[in-house]
């Protein structure tokens, strides 16, 4: 058992301009007001918890009229110092991309955009595990993105169909814990996706519906610390049995926009693929074909 090889350096964006100004997922309701002070406080707590757990946090400036810029998980996908900017399906979020690209350019990342016309919402829909990226599609990202994304990231990408519109990003359904374990929400995937995850994850912890809808999977793992938006007892017991420290952080203001702890962070230190010296993935395209 060894810790995740990534998750020590995150990009986050303060919620100065956060709010629910439009509705692009089933959780968002414009009539629900965001308490901005409370949001600032919760976000500060999350930063402090991550730093306490041993992570570095880099900051992206917030921008007026871009309330969701706070959800940096959707800024793009990062691997080995390369940054693939997101291409949002909803016009409301499309203007975020220029700000994201500016930050990554300034910070020395190799910016590699997806081909025109292909949508993908970054780390929200692409999580590394055991040498491959699992990538969610249907709600927000296009299945067709996985080929180009794989070429740009230099790592295999396996698309998983998300079938529950409430769980519109992969990071609401899947959370890598270490090199063998992950929180999984198979109810959110189609039968093919379930088989793919089953083949990839040696020790899954299967979330029940209520745990899944409490955004349990939208957690941030820093070494052996799991920072969670909520921790139902059954999940907590299992994580502790496995040797993790569970730290719940209240991000209820952000849940109004359908985002939890993971959505508020983007891991900058992901390193998957040939250069990374990872353990080889459990199967290969050619073996599986046979």
């Amino acid at each position: 058992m060894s810790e995740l090889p990534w998750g020590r350096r995150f990009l986050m964006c303060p919620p100065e301009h956060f709010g629910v100004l439009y509705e692009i997922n089933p959780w968002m309701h414009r009539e629900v007001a965001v308490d901005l002070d409370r949001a600032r406080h919760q976000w500060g707590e999350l930063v402090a918890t991550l730093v306490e757990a041993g992570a570095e946090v880099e900051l992206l400036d917030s921008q007026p009229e871009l309330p969701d810029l706070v959800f940096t998980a959707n800024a793009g996908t990062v691997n080995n110092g390369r940054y693939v900017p997101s291409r949002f399906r909803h016009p409301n979020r499309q203007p975020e991309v220029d700000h994201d690209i500016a930050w990554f350019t300034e910070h020395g990342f190799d910016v590699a955009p997806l081909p025109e016309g292909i949508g993908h919402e970054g780390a929200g829909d692409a999580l590394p595990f055991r040498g491959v990226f699992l990538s969610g599609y249907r709600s927000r990202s296009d299945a067709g993105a996985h080929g180009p994304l794989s070429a740009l990231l230099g790592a295999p990408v396996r698309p998983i169909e998300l079938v529950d519109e409430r769980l519109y990003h992969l990071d609401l359904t899947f959370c890598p814990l270490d090199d063998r374990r992950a929180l999984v929400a198979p109810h959110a995937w189609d039968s093919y996706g379930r088989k793919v995850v089953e083949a990839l994850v040696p020790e899954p912890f299967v979330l029940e519906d209520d745990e899944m809808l409490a955004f349990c999977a939208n957690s941030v793992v820093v070494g052996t610390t799991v920072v969670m938006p909520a921790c139902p007892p059954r999940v907590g017991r299992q994580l502790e049995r496995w040797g993790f420290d569970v730290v719940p952080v209240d991000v209820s203001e952000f849940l109004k926009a359908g985002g939890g702890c993971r959505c508020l962070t983007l891991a900058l230190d992901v390193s998957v693929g040939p250069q990374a010296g990872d353990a080889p993935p459990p199967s290969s395209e050619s073996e599986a074909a046979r």
Partner: protein
Amino acid sequence: MSVSETVEVEGHIIDSLILAKVLDVIVDAGADYRMVDVHIGRTSGDPSRARLEVTAADDEALAALLAELKVHGANRAAEVDALTEPAEVDGVLPVGFYATTNLPTQVRMGGHWVDVDNPEMDCALVVRPDGRVRTVPMHRVRAGDPVVVGQGGVRVQALERPRGANPFEFMNSEVSSEKPKEQLVGRVAERIKMTKGAGGKVLAVCGPAVIHTGAGPDVADLVRAGIIDVLFAGNGFATHDIESNVLGTSLGVPLGDGLPPEGGHSNHLRVINEVRRRGSIAGAVADGYITGGVMFECVQHGVPFVLGGSVRDDGPLPDVYTDVVEAADAMRAELPGVAVALMLASTLHAIATGNVLPAGVETYCVDINQAVVTKLADRGSHQALGIVTDVGLFVHTLAQHLL
């Protein structure tokens, strides 16, 4: 008619089960697929790629399926409009012209697929000023005609294979002399009845053996009864048909007792000579010289016939096309509406007809020689069902079923 489209899916489609899912989606939608090309990545890092031809029942079903496949990342293969180049001189096609098959064909122009009016093999595709596309044989192309060049923007549709307990099921059997003929003939008769019932025309392509085997009167009956709508033959068939009716002999041999009379070898020449004297077969019928037989019935019932000539013809009869290009054009002109073709003991005319027939025409090739049937299929008329038997027996039995 089913419709097809090529889709491509790329990436880690094996490990992610995307390819399996795409194939399942196609089959679950009641459609079918053919793997055109699959490239499997060697390692887990290598992407894989599959190209599939998806076939659905109709345009609507195909569109719905393509929309669903797109969700899973399988996109329509990049499509281009067909390219055309003007023919520089009459009768000569541009280099790289698209050579047609006899299958239903579509050409993409301005982003839309347009059906080719008259599928015919070994022709070129010419775009008409009104936007329609026609197959045109090489000799008929005129300077300036826009001719489709290259393979891009052209697609053909495979004919649906009949399935289940279809009366046409026996079509997919191999040519063989070891098949029960009575049953086969009965089924051909059924198909002809169905075709006639649906308003389709029946074309008969006859060789001289039809007359030699004594089947002339049966064919004449089928013409008279309105079952045969179009006749293609050569100088020999028409000559022996007339000879047998005027003189009672076929190539000098009496069809009654079979004993050759003195000077019988010249009978057919005398008959041709008399018809030539009267200007045409119709003229000889009007004059009362011809009083029965297949050609007589054709004239009497207004059934169009095309007699194609050959180098070895005696005479020939005045109706025979001595220019083979004109003969082929005359045959083409009679094809609209033809749904069933009977190739009766004719090698050259059967193949000539096969060349101009669309693949959708049910074709029955009857010959005592298996090689004729094989030859027809080898030359691209894959829709032909071969029946290896004596043509006299076949026509007689068919007439019994139909009359």
